[in-house]
């Protein structure tokens, strides 16, 4: 048997914090050959824009980039479902040699005629810029011909990680925002930004706000509609979830329309409650605050007894958490505490040094903090810290399972609503169903082999 001790790559050492003085670096380009868990800017743009359900999403490039993103996320729509179709220009050799502009033009015109979308998003993938296709010009042309917004998304994968893709998506969205005729703000209104309505989560959040007497103007991009996005400038405040994805859009809205924003997370009792109170505070409305209190009280009164049996079983169990953005990690650390669990490994693909500093303060001393890590490092720390549960995305799942460790999917592909108070209960159930499964007794790690 080989020596399987896993050592950190020299150049990765400062992206890993294992205790002692905090001295991390972050926001670096992934190290070649390190098998980063990150993807590309195209992926970031797809994540943000994908849930817009009455638009078509056309990937300009060779087939893979489209195949791998066909219907991969559980972003639900209450109406049209055009977003669940995958369209690609499927470039062939001759397109690469002679350019793909005319193919793109034909593809767009036919698709718009057939599917009658409210808008079209056209994603540029890696080779598009290199072969010199002018995607913006084609989009403009089709827009004129068809009379709907046709928006080029500057998402060539090599331009950066997901974060750059988020920016490109925000730029694309901002081309639609404000195109509604009416300009004035709607009283007591908000936009919910940065939630993708995975497993219907936005409906849960929206319902809480509506119970508080708040009007939701638009949701970006979960259960998104082009005509709602046109009106986004009419909300009085943007509630922005997640550290990265649509922060730029919020900034643009602030700059152009003076709409301030509040950051929020809907995971866990504490963060969810805060998200409701913050809105009431923003409107400085006593009645609204009382409603918020009522909502929270009712929900928590229902939730706590339901959580109790899970907490009993989960108390003292150890977890590793690795997500795309850093903001979610904070919520997860708190949610797991609510369940009596302790986070011993925490990290994200795209966090900043400040995020990690805060994280190291929030977690217990000795917690391993990881930036842009890879399978080998994750395996190393899962093993060393002897965790009972791993929270991450599908790419992390086999690492956990191979080592005989429970797993909970908290990524874009999840099928369980984990946001809101009800989401906390679902989360507890999901964590419980993995940690408490009897199958681990057979894993070598537990079988004492």
């Amino acid at each position, binding site marked *: 048997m*080989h020596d*399987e001790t*896993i050592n950190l*790559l020299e150049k990765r050492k400062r992206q890993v914090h294992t205790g002692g003085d905090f001295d991390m670096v972050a926001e670096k380009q992934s*190290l*070649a*050959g*390190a*098998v*980063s*868990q*990150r*993807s*590309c*800017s195209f992926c970031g743009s797809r994540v943000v824009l994908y849930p817009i359900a009455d638009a078509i999403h*056309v990937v300009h490039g*060779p*087939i*893979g*980039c*489209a*195949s*791998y*993103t066909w*219907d991969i996320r559980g972003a639900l729509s209450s109406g049209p*479902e055009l977003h*669940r*179709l*995958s*369209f*690609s*220009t*499927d470039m*062939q*050799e001759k*397109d*690469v040699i002679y350019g793909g502009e005319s193919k793109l033009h*034909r*593809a767009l015109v*036919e698709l718009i005629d*057939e599917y009658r979308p409210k808008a079209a998003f056209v994603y540029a993938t*890696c080779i598009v810029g*290199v*072969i010199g296709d002018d995607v913006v010009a084609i989009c403009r042309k089709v827009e004129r011909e068809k009379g709907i917004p046709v928006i080029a998304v500057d998402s060539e*994968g*090599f331009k950066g*990680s997901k974060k750059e893709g988020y920016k490109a998506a925000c730029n694309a969205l901002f081309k639609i925002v404000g195109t509604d005729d009416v300009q004035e703000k709607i009283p007591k209104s908000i936009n919910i930004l940065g939630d993708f309505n995975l497993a219907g989560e936005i409906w849960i959040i929206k319902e809480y706000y509506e119970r508080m007497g708040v009007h939701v103007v638009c949701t970006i991009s979960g259960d998104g509609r082009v005509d709602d996005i046109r009106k986004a400038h009419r909300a009085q405040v943007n509630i922005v979830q997640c550290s990265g994805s649509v922060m730029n859009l919020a900034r643009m809205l602030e700059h152009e329309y003076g709409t301030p924003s509040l950051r929020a997370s809907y995971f866990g009792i504490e963060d969810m409650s805060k998200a409701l109170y913050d809105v009431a505070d923003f409107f400085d409305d006593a009645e609204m605050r009382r409603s918020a209190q009522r909502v929270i009280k009712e929900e928590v009164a229902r939730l706590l007894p339901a959580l109790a049996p899970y907490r009993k079983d989960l108390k003292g169990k150890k977890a590793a958490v690795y997500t795309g953005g850093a903001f979610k990690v904070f919520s997860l650390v708190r949610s797991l505490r609510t369940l009596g669990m302790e986070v011993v490994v925490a990290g994200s693909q795209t966090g900043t040094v400040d995020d990690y500093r805060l994280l190291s303060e929030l977690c217990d001393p000795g917690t391993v903090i990881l930036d842009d890590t*890879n*399978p*080998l490092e994750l395996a190393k720390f899962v093993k060393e810290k002897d965790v009972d549960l791993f929270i991450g995305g*599908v*790419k992390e*799942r*086999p*690492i956990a*399972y*191979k*080592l005989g460790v429970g797993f909970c999917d908290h990524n874009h592909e999840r099928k369980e609503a984990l946001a809101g108070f009800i989401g906390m209960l679902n989360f507890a159930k999901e964590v419980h169903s993995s940690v408490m499964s009897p199958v681990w007794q057979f*894993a*070598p790690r537990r079988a004492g082999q």
Partner: protein
Amino acid sequence: MNCVTGKNFTATRNACKLCAPLGACLAFRGIEGCLPFLHGSQGCATYIRRYMISHFREPMDIASSSFGEDSVVFGGRRNLFDGLRHVIEGYRPQVIGIATTCLAETIGDDVSMFVKEFVSAERKQTALPYILHASTPSYSGSHADGYQWAVRAIVDQLAVDGPNEKFIGVFPGMVSPADLRHLRELLDDFGMPFSIVPDYSDPLDGPVWGDYHRIPYGGTPVREIGKLGRASAVVELASTLSEKQSAATLLDERFSTAVFRTGLPIGIRQTDAFFRVLEQITGRPTPARHAGERGRLIDAYVDGHKYTFGKKVALFGEEDFVVGLAAFCCEIGLRPVLCASGGKSGRLRECIMAAAPEIDPATPILEGADFAEIGETILPLKPDLLIGNSKGFTLSRTTGTPLIRVGFPIHDRISGPRSLHLGYRGAQRLFDTVCDKLMEIRQESNDIGYSYI
């Protein structure tokens, strides 16, 4: 949501294929101690990993040279060198299998030359791994092509001449880990040493571990691939494959190796042909165990023939797989009303007609098809079943046609890596699955509630 206009669309809608590097990574995963490495930007590697993990539910590390804007301007040489160094340090692989993404191909990186430079610069290092390279531009072919390109590249770069040895080389095609295991068992029973290239059955369907392994164990050892040029014979399980893509043809040209080619052994007739080849090479009759399986299979066919007769099926997947499925369906009385693939060999029709002579010559046989087109074609044909990978689920749902999941990928069931298609045993499983489904439909399509069907 499905349109019914039957127009020809320029865009590919709901693709029925994946990109070439995916196939190459799968092939590289079947070499012992090999780490697949994509030369290009990070996204492709990550997407392909995620896609494969969702099917195999096993670790599938794929390194990337993580292009940035500077690599696009100045070429990816530096990133490749850095990437190789880091992979060697972190994974300690015996082999690195490099496949190229569209971007690397488009900017014209000469990976073979880069590898040569790398090897000569780093040779002083002890134990440099084998570094293999397959050129896999997705704008020139699908995942099925990528798989074959990689297999051919592996053989091209590893096989060497020497005195003949008594063993069989087998190129199995893109089949499941369960299929590979069954092939192993079957070749064992013929009693001649053999080597399956590539064999990812263990790396992609392995046990839970005590310690994390940098690279899952299993796969075909390099030294066995090296011997292929000296094999008594090689068998290539393929039908639509062109000579240019064929690893077996390469061996024939370079080492005059005896080559046998037969389609994927799906169904009795295709499996019989495969067994005849093995009998010829080994000089032994079909082992009793398999003759027994064949007998029981025919018995099952007889017992179930009425349920399958005349039922209409639509088949889709990789071309070779569709050829095998068509042959199987026709021999049990099912009637393919459509055979479709995202691949474009130009030979699908001809191969299907040869393997399944009873098929109605008017049957639409589509190459380069996508799921939207498949949907539009089957709408008036009203098949009773769809048979293909799980990406057909959308279609199954919108048309209300049950889907029998076979091949790759299967993202919505647990059994993907363990689903057996090849040999008499594979045909038995396929037959049972199809027949059970048809019986279930019959039982549930009336209110009577027959408890005997």
